């Protein structure tokens, strides 16, 4: 993150501005990804008018960044009406989509609307693996065609490569594919429980040896990745664990507001309440907001604290929002093993 962008986030945090909001417009989807945490049945999505009303409130609250996601966005017939309305309100817009419904006409419209970035999930360069994860034959080919449409119109595209046991070895090829397409590629080994608490999909998480391979892949790591973690300083203990509830939040297709998409703590509903009331007055939001690193009994004394990617939402789903997130503990441990292996080689 640039120093200027960090400055903006710091100002938002100080002023308690919800600078960034992920807004899922639908949970319906045309893929059935094996690791998905959502219930794809429609339990009463917000109408076009309701969505526009929420966007009005977000603009008034100071939100600049909106990530529209789902489910699959393109299943909403009013998607472009919503995007157009959001742009008239001055939002910076990014989309997350599988893009299999995105053709040349849709790519033209996204370019004309000034959409800043489109993230497309690609699980593997091999159709049998990618399509096996999405459960839609031909989906890899269609998603890649859509990426080419977007790129040919100058749109910024990000491939999101979620790592699971069945595709963990394919990320170098996905990155190469991204290079050929002229797009960015992110790699993420995070698999979360389903929103109803079902943890059965966690067995898809990459194994320790697979994770170790990622953390020892020099092509993925920054130059300081294998430096020892910095010592814990007093001011670090006064910091918020993450932006959830401080300068960012998540809104579901049903108007439910959560601190983050990965933090399913209900804080209010926009069919019954104004966004500003939920954001500023919800006891749950304020509970999340009050937590500082020093309030985390285990993590604040952990030697990995300064480098750990602990997710408060994953900790919440494990039963304690002030506790550790075991998946992130594992990542920190594996990262330390990677560092030790590096030293042995040196």
């Amino acid at each position, binding site marked *: 993150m640039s120093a200027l962008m960090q400055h*903006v986030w710091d100002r*938002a945090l100080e002023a308690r501005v919800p600078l960034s909001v992920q807004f899922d417009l639908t949970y319906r989807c045309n893929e059935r990804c094996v690791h998905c945490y959502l219930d794809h049945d429609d339990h009463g999505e917000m109408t076009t008018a309701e969505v526009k009303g929420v966007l009005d409130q977000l603009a008034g609250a100071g939100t600049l960044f909106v990530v529209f996601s789902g489910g699959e966005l393109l299943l909403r017939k009013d998607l472009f009406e919503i995007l157009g309305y959001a742009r008239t309100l001055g939002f910076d817009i990014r989309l997350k989509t599988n893009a299999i419904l995105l053709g040349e006409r849709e790519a033209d419209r996204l370019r*004309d609307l000034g959409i800043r970035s489109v993230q497309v999930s690609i699980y593997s360069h091999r159709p049998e693996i990618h399509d096996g994860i999405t459960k839609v034959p031909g989906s890899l080919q269609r998603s890649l065609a859509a990426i080419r449409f977007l790129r040919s119109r*100058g749109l910024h595209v990000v491939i999101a490569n979620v790592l699971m046991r069945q595709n963990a070895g394919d990320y170098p090829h996905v990155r190469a594919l991204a290079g050929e397409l002229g797009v960015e590629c992110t790699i993420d080994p995070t698999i979360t429980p389903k929103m109803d608490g079902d943890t059965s999909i966690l067995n898809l998480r990459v194994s320790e040896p697979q994770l170790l391979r990622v953390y020892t892949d020099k092509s993925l790591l920054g130059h300081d990745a294998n430096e020892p973690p910095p010592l814990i300083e007093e001011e670090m203990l006064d910091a918020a664990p993450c932006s959830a509830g401080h300068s960012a939040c998540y809104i579901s297709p049903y108007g439910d507001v959560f601190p983050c998409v990965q933090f399913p703590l209900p804080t209010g509903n926009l069919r019954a309440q104004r966004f500003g009331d939920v954001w500023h007055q919800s006891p749950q939001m304020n509970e999340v907001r009050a937590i500082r690193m020093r309030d985390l009994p285990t993590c604040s004394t952990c030697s990995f604290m300064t480098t750990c990617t602990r997710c408060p939402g994953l900790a919440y789903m494990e039963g304690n929002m002030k506790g550790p997130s075991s998946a992130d503990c594992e990542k920190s441990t594996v990262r330390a093993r990677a560092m030790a292996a590096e030293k042995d080689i040196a």
Partner: protein
Amino acid sequence: MSDVFFTRAGQLAARKVADEVVILRAHDSSLYVLNPVASAVWEAADGRTSLDAVVRDVICHEFDVDPETARRDASELLASLVAEGLLRTSDQPMAPADPGAPGGHPA
């Protein structure tokens, strides 16, 4: 000196965060953070309010500065915002900006 009217360019996202306007350009993700005076100019950029009016009614009113200095500084600021592609100017009033309007985006 003839007066000038100014409006926001298309393909921009913008919001006031605390007392600073933050602007993000869609096609290259360029980020701008305007200081309070520049933010006041940006907020007045409706295509119908002239620079002289902004200097007189906003800058001289809200900031401790004499009219001559304010006019000179505002002109320089306007030129730099135009050079960055954030504002458009005209010697006639213009329609307000549409943030989603095509323009400046590589085809």
